């Protein structure tokens, strides 16, 4: 199983990780606003994550850490 952690405070909500995810399990949290004033990206279904790190590869702000 893979584990993805988001450093939500520095996320700028650009959504590039959401588009990159082949399993479509990332989303921008519409009910949350971080310190910067953005809706941060969050994992919606950790069980389905395959740990490909595509999200982290496309993230411009080094928000995402991937473990497998």
């Amino acid at each position, binding site marked *: 199983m893979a584990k993805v952690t988001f450093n939500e405070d520095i996320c700028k909500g650009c959504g590039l990780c959401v588009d990159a995810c082949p399993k479509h399990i990332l989303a921008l949290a519409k009910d949350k606003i971080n310190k910067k004033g953005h809706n941060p990206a969050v994992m919606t279904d950790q069980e389905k994550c395959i740990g490909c790190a595509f999200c982290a590869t*496309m993230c411009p702000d*080094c928000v995402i850490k991937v*473990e497998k």
Partner: protein
Amino acid sequence: MAVVFEKPKSLTSKEFHYCPGCPHGIIHRLVAEAIDNLGIEGKAIGVAPVGCAVMAYDYFTCDMIEAAHGRAPAVATGIKRSLPENIVFTYQGDGDLASIGMAETVHAATRNENITIIFVNNAIYGMTGGQMAPTSLPGQVTQTSPYGRDVKTAGYPIKVAELLSSLDAPYYIERVAVNNVKNVKHAGKAIEKAFRNQMEGKGFSLIEVISACPTNWGLTPQKALQWVDEKMIPYYPLGVYRDKDKEASV
């Protein structure tokens, strides 16, 4: 659990000041990953440009110097010649390298100066608010070309990789993009090769990275990357324009 992906050690803990979705962050990370992979953090010296990446010196843990607008290749030449054991790289945008710094760039290339240049081409002046750059596409709407770039008065975009590869001297010139996972991974390999060339004393290596500017293009980050695919890459074809490694083996 093993870590598959985390922030490279050669980046400081400071948050990037770039706009949401700006690929500068991706390119910074690729440079830092190359420095980590090659184990040269202690001897790398970076030269920051003028432009959006002007504060790159805050983000890399290696020594950094800020050059006057466009003069990074000249500053890098000075550093490399006085400290030949160090690994010297510049990080420049298109307004910096292809406009005011064109002379320094061409001459550093034609001397086959043993430095590494990361050239970020997003076809616009980002920091100053989206003016037309030497690399803006024909017909591209910018602050200073509100009806689109008119090639009759503003000329055609400068294709830096092609232009420099017409010189005999440069060792390695490649154009890459960071608009999708595949291209980002390939860009990382090209940047690492550009650093390795310098470590092996081979000479001038320049990587042109086709980037995006969602803010000044007036597009969402997703649409900006799509625009790279549809407009930028057809005009600026990706690929290796010079690689003397391969020429030698033929």
